[in-house]
């Protein structure tokens, strides 16, 4: 997505061989996120979703808008890991987990309300892809995605 203006609503969807509870834990608990989410430690408490980098630096601190385990999580997004992104307007991330036949889940991630955050939109376009394929690999093989 380098030559085009990045989309203001981005949709990512994939199937993961795991239960909804496993997917939920993997996106909300730091012992999992450190293994696929750019090594970030995600903590959800008191209506906030916070993400910390490997050295404890604050990478994200945003409001949780909806929390319905293990099906749906909606939170705001602001990239504090980069000063240019931190200046932009807040956007929104929605995770939807749907159980499917054969022990699979359909995971849909929608990152929208990016109208006031063009740099964030461009930055996350490749990022989500790495995060989601890493999440799939971790849940299906127990190993982080290498490379």
């Amino acid at each position: 997505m380098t030559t085009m203006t990045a989309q203001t609503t981005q949709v990512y969807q994939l199937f993961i061989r795991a239960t909804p509870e496993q997917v939920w834990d993997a996106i909300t608990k730091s012992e999992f996120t450190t293994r696929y989410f750019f090594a970030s430690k995600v903590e959800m408490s008191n209506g906030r979703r916070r993400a910390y980098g490997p050295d404890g630096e604050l990478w994200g601190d945003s409001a949780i808008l909806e929390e319905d385990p293990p099906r749906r999580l909606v939170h705001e997004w602001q990239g504090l890991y980069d000063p240019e992104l931190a200046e932009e307007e807040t956007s929104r991330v929605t995770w939807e987990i749907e159980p499917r036949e054969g022990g699979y889940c359909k995971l849909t991630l929608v990152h929208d309300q990016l109208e006031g955050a063009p740099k964030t939109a461009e930055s996350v376009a490749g990022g989500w892809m790495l995060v989601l394929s890493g999440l799939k690999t971790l849940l299906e093989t127990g190993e982080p995605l290498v490379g």
Partner: protein
Amino acid sequence: MDDDQVFKALADPTRRHLLDRLFERDGRTLTELESELEMTRFGVMKHLRILEVAGLVVTRRQGREKLHYLNPVPIRLIHDRWIDKYTERRVSALLDLKKELEETG
């Protein structure tokens, strides 16, 4: 989920064209997509359905409209599974060749 469906979906110029249109601008209605193709509404619907089954297009409802989004994840997974594997070997073969030539040269 199924590589066969992704390859099959990509093996058609109209469907690749639809993906390119969505890559340029996402979240389009059937009517919008149809207006850019010389094809019946039914034909476009049929192609979109194949793309949707393969997971390359995801639809979301917004009010009364059904919007179509490009989902890049299956292409990424195919890339990880097929492209990386072969290009990695080619790159390492070139590196081996370079090393060998430099050592003997």
